[in-house]
């Protein structure tokens, strides 16, 4: 059994999705949808444990050896990502029942769960696979499912958001596919390990294929940048996250960009190799300034938002900037920072969106101004939001601090003190947007005429606080985050060479 874990990781949610359609019964569907992410989490945990013990696992689907067959290849980096993705899915699950989305969703819950599980399967598939085309397929599964999830938002504008997300996401997918195609043309393989072995030949300057490889990389990079919402390709994100059901926003914010990030890192470091990407392609020349601009522009935009979910969405744009900064610093420390932030940001943004979901449930609004009085009336939710906000700021003792520590350390190691200062300075903007919310929640009085609100039930508080608690826990104990991330960064840096 245990040798089939890699495929089970993907197959379980993939099959559970359609199963929901068949079951239809609300309770059964709910039970299944709750169980599957937990199962995925268990599998991912076991995988991570195995990988830590024995190193990378290669699983050949159907027994066909690569490069002919499809290989699932689990190493520290993707085991780590899968743990995050399935953990978030498990935690978000209690939020998904009907009360989140439109009336249609409430009537047809099983459809919702089916799509959700498909999205989960897609995300896990991208992480697990060792085959580029397979990755593309899962990327599209995940994306299509995401578009539908976004479309389920309460307002009609959700449809527009989903549509725009669809268009842009498809452009990204197409770029990605073009990149794969070009690579296949040059090397005749789609297997990642194989690609890594065969690419150096056409990559070397002067050979006829060198330009094609360049173009292939450019397509891959831009395509993934779109999926990852790298500034200025981030525009789908605020709209999608703002209009999707809050729990979906939480799930997507915590997982989908993370997986794209993983894929980018995999392409950059495993396929092409740091030396090539940074020396020949000079990825950092473009990505570094873009990351920094993202940090500032995203945070600044967040400050001026009047809608809580859009605020969080713009904050995500900025936080993605930190992650890509980690890549573009082109060092193990930097990559560690990026990966740690991947994990930490998943926790905090997931937690924050869940808090926003709690607010949304009671306030029936996500306008910041409507949060007046929430500090007193919904103390636990607000406390969760504040703690998550502190993590975003990077206050020591929270996970955000750990990420920032590595990023700044990486910058200083390379003597880029200006970058270091910019990183810390940008987190001040986070103070500003977090505190805008805190002030309203704690100091503004709720309008006399507004409908009464009270704290959300524990069923929702517990998952929120699991994520928020985790941001604090992983702010103090970092073996599981920074430790694994450092090892994963090492693996990525060295692997497949």
């Amino acid at each position, binding site marked *: 059994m245990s040798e089939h874990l890699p495929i089970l990781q993907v197959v379980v949610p993939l099959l559970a999705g359609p199963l929901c359609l068949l079951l239809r019964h609300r309770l059964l569907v709910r039970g299944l949808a709750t169980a599957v992410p937990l199962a995925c989490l268990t599998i991912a945990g076991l995988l991570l444990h195995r990988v830590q013990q024995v190193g990378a696992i290669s699983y050949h689907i159907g027994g066909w050896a690569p490069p002919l067959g499809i290989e699932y290849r689990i190493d520290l980096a993707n085991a780590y990502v899968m743990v995050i993705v399935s953990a978030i899915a498990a935690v978000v699950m209690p939020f998904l029942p009907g009360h989140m989305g439109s009336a249609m969703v409430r009537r047809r819950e099983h459809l919702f769960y089916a799509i959700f599980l498909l999205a989960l399967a897609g995300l896990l598939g991208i992480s697990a696979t060792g085959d580029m085309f397979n990755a593309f397929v899962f990327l599209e599964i995940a994306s299509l499912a995401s578009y539908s999830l976004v479309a389920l938002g309460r307002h009609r504008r959700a449809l527009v958001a989903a549509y725009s997300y669809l268009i842009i996401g498809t452009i990204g997918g197409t770029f990605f596919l073009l990149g794969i195609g070009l690579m296949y043309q040059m090397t005749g393989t789609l297997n990642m390990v194989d690609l890594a072995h065969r690419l150096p030949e056409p990559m070397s300057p002067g050979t006829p294929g060198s330009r094609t490889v360049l173009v292939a990389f450019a397509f891959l990079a831009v395509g993934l940048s779109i999926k990852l919402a790298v500034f200025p390709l981030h525009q*789908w994100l*605020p709209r999608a996250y703002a209009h999707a059901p809050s729990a979906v926003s939480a799930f997507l914010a915590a997982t989908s960009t993370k997986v794209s990030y993983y894929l980018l890192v995999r392409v950059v470091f495993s396929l092409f190799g740091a030396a090539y990407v940074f020396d020949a392609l000079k990825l950092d020349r*473009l990505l570094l300034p873009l990351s920094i601009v993202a940090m500032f522009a995203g945070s600044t935009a967040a400050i*001026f*938002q009047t809608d809580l979910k859009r605020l969080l969405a713009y904050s995500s744009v900025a936080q993605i900037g930190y992650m890509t900064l980690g890549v573009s610093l082109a060092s193990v420390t930097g990559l560690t920072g990026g990966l740690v932030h991947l994990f930490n940001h998943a926790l905090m943004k997931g937690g924050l969106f869940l808090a926003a979901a709690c607010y949304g449930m009671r306030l029936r609004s996500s306008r910041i101004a409507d949060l007046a009085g929430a500090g007193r009336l919904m103390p636990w939710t607000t406390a969760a939001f504040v703690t998550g906000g502190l993590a975003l700021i990077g206050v020591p003792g929270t996970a955000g601090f750990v990420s920032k520590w590595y990023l700044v350390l990486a910058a200083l190691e390379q003597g880029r003190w200006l970058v270091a200062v910019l990183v810390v300075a940008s987190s001040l903007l986070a103070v500003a947007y977090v505190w805008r919310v805190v002030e309203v929640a704690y100091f503004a009085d709720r309008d006399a005429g507004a409908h009464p609100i009270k704290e959300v039930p524990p069923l929702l508080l517990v998952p929120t606080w699991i994520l928020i608690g985790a941001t604090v826990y992983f702010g103090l104990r970092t073996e599981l985050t920074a430790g694994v991330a450092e090892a994963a960064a090492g693996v990525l840096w060295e692997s497949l060479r």
Partner: protein
Amino acid sequence: MSGLPPGMILVLGALALPLVRGRLRQLLVVALPVASYAHMLALPADLSVGAELFGYALEPVRVDRLSLVWGHVFHIVAILTAIYALRVKGATEHVAGLTYAGSAIAAAFAGDLITLFVFWELTAVTSVFLIWARPGARSRRAGLRYLVIQVASGVLLLAGSVLTYLERGSLAFDHLGLSGPGSVLIFLAFGIKAAFPLLHNWLQDAYPEATVAGTVFLSAFTTKLAIYALARAFPGTAILIPIGALMTLFPIVYAVIENDLRRVLAYSLNNQLGFMVVGIGIGTELSLNGTAAHAFAHIIYKALLFMAMGAVLHRTGTIKASALGGLYKSMPLTAACCIVGSLSISGFPLFSGFVSKSMILSAGAEAHMLVLSLALLVASAGVVDHSGIKIPFFAFFAHDSGRRVEEAPWNMLLAMGAAAAICIGLGVYPQPLYDLLPYPVSYVPYTTAHVVTSLELLLFAALAFAFLYRSGRYPAEIESVNLDFDWTYRRLAPRAVAAARRRLAALHAAAARRLDAARRRLLRSLERTYGPSGLLGEPWPTGTTALWAAVLLAAYLILSYL
């Protein structure tokens, strides 16, 4: 008990005064200085009490002949002043006066610089309440100025002590001499309290603004403590001679034209300090003895004069020469005591000033200091004017102001009478005083020549006064302010600071306005760009993102070709 610095009984005991009332308090007020005096008398001669603090070897109590002179007179005047102040209502003045006296006494027995500094500052902190205790804005402001200057002296002493410690590795308070930056700072610290020229104005500024009894307390301790400190640390320092000579001279001019009689006395006090400073500067045994003796005599007769003026103020409510006159009719005993004080300060034979001041003059003459001796001669003539004649004449005689008041209360009379008795007693029989002095005394004050020349000086000066006054040439008493060096810090500096502040405030306001406007502009423009409907705050159309994707792709390619 011998470990307790002399004077501490006063300091600690006085703190209990607010707790008791009425007779008991009055009893305590007098009993405390008496007990403290008894304590001091019981101390063995040449006592030295050591202590260690922060690793420094300190000597909180050092009894020797020099400190004992001050110990005696400080205690005597404390007792007299306590009696004088007996009927003052409220505890403030009593507490302040007695703690002040106690601090000054303890300072006189300090054997190291830290102890000296502590008590030096304590005299400042305690005495300022004697000024503040008098109602009115003038007193409050004068008190604040006084405190600042006194503490300035203290911090200079602190800095000087630190430097001295670094230079010598010792904190002993002994002969220092002007030997380095540390001792210069200490010299300046002492100089402030001793009212050296240009450092003197706090004295004339503050003393006249204190309460009736407060001025008496003040006149006795602060400046004389400074004289003690100078005598201890800087005997024979030549620069003191011109400083002292100047001090004897310039206050005279102010004393002549000053209308506030207590301020006249303050100038006169300054002039008397000059004699003592000169004595220290000459530095011979005779001159130092003279300084000690003069300090002793001076404390008593100056207290007496201030008591008399205080009694006048107490009864009439004013102390302006222009508003007084003819009081001998209603306050004859006070007038008599005042005249005793005046004769003493003028150095009239058979009064205490004669037997002490002449020692300093003789020391100057023996050292053949011609210019100095002439200066002191002129100064002595000046003393005749302001303290010998002006004080009693304008208060008690001159033209009758028509005021008819009661004689001073019994406790004031008792204190003044006792002080006057001491003045006369020492003048007639100076031996007990001479026995106290630090060095053996072979000086004989009463020689024919000495008596004759002194009388000549005094009587002819008085004759000159009579001539001037009767011919109407004596400066009239005019209510006025006479500019002195305090103008620099009461008028010049505040005006300059106020002007600078106005300028700065205007600049600051302008800068704040501009900054605020800039901040608003920035926020507005940021909001325009990043707000929910701004370029970067509102999702772009899909096409734009596609365009950007193309741009980025191109950028990657171009970069990699470069």
